[in-house]
């Protein structure tokens, strides 16, 4: 009977398929390199966190250094500059987070109005670029352009008659301003991608309906586009919360100098100077743990909010 044949065929197919897919050793093998690398360079160092509770001396090593309990954590909070450093970090990071949501959002809305595709693509190519350039090079460029006799101050003098040069990198308040503005400059193009993707996903029927009702483009933006993008804004914003103690080591390290330590020093640069350059390894590790705990708590809170408000999951 033909139907029996067909049945036999299917079960055979199922067998072969199941056999091919059930062999999982190739999958384990594929994961092996990544598992090993992460084990050595992430899981092993986690064991090294114990030095935060020791009086670690490189000569004595991990196993023979003296245990001091929470001494370094206490010391950390008594350190004269630490409050200022934590404040600087949170302050700079918070402003970066806020502007790095608003600016790409606005930029994506503007870009979305462009109907001439080559123009759109060109602008996109140009604005993504700074994201891919190291802060070493950008720092080199900015140090040159923003110097007291640099091109920016020269232009300010020539065009606006400014007599005193602005010390963008030499005055604490201007330094913060420069750091935040240059970070926005570097990041906004790349940040736009997420919103552009979301914009492409809005149901065109909503716009058609709005247009039939006689809504102007601004009204459409206000009542269709912006509400449709809100969930993604919430996700990006809440997930960024975990970075409140990451104010951007790469950037600040390549821009700052002793003149602006009071207003520009952040936890990471502080740890580098006190911990690594001065050899206070245990203290630096303690500060690192403090940072990780705060960051982790905020990530968890962020994910919960993102899940509740915007139904977002990582997997």
């Amino acid at each position, binding site marked *: 009977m033909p139907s029996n044949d067909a049945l036999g065929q299917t079960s055979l197919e199922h067998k072969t398929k199941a056999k091919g897919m059930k062999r999982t050793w190739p999958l384990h093998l594929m994961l092996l390199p990544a598992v090993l690398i*992460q084990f050595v360079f992430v899981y092993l160092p986690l064991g090294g966190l114990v030095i935060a509770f020791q009086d670690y001396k490189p000569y004595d090593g991990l196993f023979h250094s003296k245990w001091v309990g929470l001494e370094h954590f206490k010391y950390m909070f008594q350190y004269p500059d630490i409050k200022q450093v934590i404040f600087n970090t949170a302050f700079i990071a918070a402003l970066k987070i806020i502007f790095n949501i608003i600016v790409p959002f606005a930029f994506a809305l503007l870009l979305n109005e462009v109907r001439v595709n080559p123009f759109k693509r060109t602008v996109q190519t140009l604005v993504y670029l700074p994201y891919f350039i190291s802060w070493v090079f950008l720092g080199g460029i900015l140090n040159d352009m923003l110097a007291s006799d640099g091109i920016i101050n020269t232009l300010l003098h020539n065009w606006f008659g400014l007599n005193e040069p602005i010390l963008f990198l030499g005055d604490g308040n201007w330094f913060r301003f420069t750091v935040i503005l240059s970070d926005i400059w570097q990041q906004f193009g790349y940040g736009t991608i997420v919103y552009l993707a979301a914009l492409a996903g809005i149901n065109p029927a909503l716009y058609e309906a709005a247009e039939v009702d006689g809504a102007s483009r601004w009204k459409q933006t206000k009542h269709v586009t912006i509400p449709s993008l809100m969930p993604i804004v919430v996700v990006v914003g809440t997930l960024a919360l975990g970075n409140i103690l990451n104010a951007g080591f*790469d950037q600040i390290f390549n821009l700052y100098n002793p003149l602006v330590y009071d207003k520009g020093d952040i936890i990471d640069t502080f740890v580098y100077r006190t911990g690594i350059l001065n050899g206070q390894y245990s203290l*630096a590790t303690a500060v690192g743990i403090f940072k990780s705990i705060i960051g982790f708590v905020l990530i968890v809170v962020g994910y919960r909010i993102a899940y509740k408000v915007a139904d977002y999951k990582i997997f």
Partner: protein
Amino acid sequence: MYHKTTGYRIFTAFNYLILLAAGLLCIIPIIHILAISFSASAPANAHLVGLWPVDWNTDSYTKTMNNPNFLRAFWISIGRTALGASITLAVIVLGGYALSKDQRVFKSRNFYAWYFVFTMWFSGGIIPLYIVIRNLHLMNTIWSLVLPGAVAVFNMILLMNFFRATPKELEEAAFIDGAGHFSILFRVYLPLAMPALATMTLFTIVGNWNAWFDALLYINDYRNYPLATFLQTVIVQQDFSKLNPDVNELKNISQRTVKAAQIFIGMLPVLLVYPFLQRFFVKGIVLGAVKE
């Protein structure tokens, strides 16, 4: 229709201007540094150079290219980038494929997934990592630069999502034809994942080329510095002590036009690969990131 209203037309005109200005703002600093590098020293030092070279000459490039320290650092960067990017791509392609399998087929999948996700959130920080690298005797070797960050977990997850979006029927058909996981990955999945792969290639190349801090920690001998680290010490920190240069060389390195040339050469590889690979990355990231 809103397109024809005067208000919208005025808006459109301004919009194009704003967008164009934003685009230019992103490359003007690069053009400026390029213009300085091709200018003569005197106008450059007098800050007379804007976006076009004054007294065109290539002196600064000759000097840079004759600086053995710079050249060595450049080649080390090339090697590091080639090695680092190959390792990362190999590891995340293989890992991303394995993780894209359903848990019903691959029981340990979730264990592995959490094993990697955990490493995104927790790390020992630089000092414990430093101790591990020292105890493994990786100090002063290229491995201390390419291995610690080799598993780009986030990119692996993007690839995993990309693989998951590939129709299951293709995979099943290949299995029936007797293909194993490795040939399915390389002959079915990868050809379809070209945009994602191009994106990851761009990210890993750029990441390795731009990295500078690791070498500052793990490389004791400045002669083994990759270019970004070399320029960080020479141009940003202005620390020439490690190079022990003679007076003449010092004068050359610290010249404004020479600095500009070095910065520009430092950025060049990224500027060169970026335009070719960036057109993929909107597709590469988006398809990976957006789920139904």
